[in-house]
């Protein structure tokens, strides 16, 4: 066990715990905070892999902006606990849980096989691909068109959100 592996396991547990928290919590605010925990763990993972820029951006964008928006809406609508409907939507539980178990099984199958395949287990994450310079240069050269396309996307999201959330003038 190297120190990186220990760090990985710690943060993997945090991420998984956060994810489970989202599923188990009934109060959406608790779900949101579980997810924030998860995102912070993911940021640590990115930094562990050498993607420093994305690690920080993960916190700025997800934890600092998107989740604030979620929490804000939860508070604005003042949602408390889920109302319980014991009979309804049971069938989705019956679909969802086996589907999840199936996916997990598939994952472990693939993962064990990936470990056998030598091509990708030998590689290790080091180096400088994740620095701000590399990301910035990449965005403005090879990814110029997608980068511009995101501005269109954001503009539309702003206009759309404003239209939908605006109060009806009666």
């Amino acid at each position: 066990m190297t120190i990186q592996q220990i760090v990985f396991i710690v943060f993997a547990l945090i991420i998984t715990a956060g994810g489970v928290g989202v599923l188990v919590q009934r109060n959406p605010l608790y779900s949101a905070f579980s997810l924030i925990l998860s995102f912070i763990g993911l940021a640590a993972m990115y930094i562990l892999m050498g993607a420093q820029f994305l690690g920080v951006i993960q916190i700025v964008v997800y934890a600092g902006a998107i989740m604030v928006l979620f929490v804000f809406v939860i508070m604005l609508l003042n949602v408390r606990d889920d109302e319980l409907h014991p009979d309804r939507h049971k069938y989705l539980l019956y679909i969802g849980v086996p589907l999840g178990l199936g996916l997990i099984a598939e994952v472990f199958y693939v993962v064990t096989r990936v470990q056998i395949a030598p091509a990708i287990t030998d590689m290790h994450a080091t180096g400088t691909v994740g620095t701000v310079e590399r990301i910035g240069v990449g965005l403005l050269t090879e990814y110029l068109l997608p980068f511009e396309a995101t501005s269109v996307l954001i503009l539309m999201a702003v206009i759309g959100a404003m239209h939908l959330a605006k109060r009806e003038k009666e």
Partner: protein
Amino acid sequence: MPLLLFSQPFMDSPLIPLIIEWSLKIFFIFGGLMTALAYLTWFERRVLAYIQMRLGPNRVGPAGLLQPLADGIKFIFKEDIVPLDADKFLYTLAPIMSLVPALTCYVLLPFGDKFVMPGLNREIPLHITHVNVGVLAIFALTGMGVYGIVLAGYASNNKYSLMGGLRSSAQMVSYELAMVMSIIGVLLQAGSLDLVEICKHQAGWFGMQWHLFTYPPTGIIGFFIFLIAMVAETNRVPFDLPEAETELVAGFHTEYSSMKFAMFFIAEYANMVTASAMATILFLGGWMGPFVDQFPLLGPVYFTAKVGFFLFLYVWLRGTLPRYRYDQLMNLGWKFLLPLSLVNLVLTATIALFFM
């Protein structure tokens, strides 16, 4: 935390001396800062009193200098009240969520350049850790500070608290935009997100090539946008809507008492210091100033003096300005500061393109 663990020095150098160095630095910086924060309250009350032609606290100790200590003792011994219908877990979590990011920021702030310890022959950089995305990291941490306030508002189960929390989150999110936009011009000039690099970039002109003065008038415009946004970010007068006592009792911390309240209080002052330090680093050259090359220890002095200026400004504003109305606040942020900062950014980029 992760930033600290994976920052470059941790990976490269021998561990034991580094840990000792770190522990000492953390001890001094945090010890000093916590004391400074405590005295900031004294400072604020005294200055405010002078502005308002009063005396201010002058009973405990000479010139009231022991007042913070007395306040601290009072906070510790007060009864810790948790409202009956409050969400206990979140109610307790909120002050922690507020304080921890606020204090963590200090890990990243550079107080000066390196200095060589006499006799030890060891270069000690005057900051706790050094990451090359410092500006972003600070914004990440201050962004996390919103949650404390939001949670406090939600968990108290009190409509004034809820309103305060809502207002605060909206306010902080709105002003963060203008704030980030206003510093992009600076980042463009410095070509780095590294706080130390940004400071060093301002070393010219005898230590006075501050971003405030370069590329006129963009530096000054950016600085003022940053200043306004920073006051709004820290929820201070004239933008202290979340805790506007005339309408919201005390806003998000209405229900808090004792140490929990103290933690919000400390967090607010800690954020003020961070914001001032950021303004110093980004626009006023950080530790740079005349003769700082010859005497590296002048760096922290300059730095402290500049931060102190901003802190005085905070108090001054509080003493002189009335509070904004909420919609005025939002209009100012979205319809004035944000467009202005965008225009400023374009202007900076144009000047940089043609004159660099």
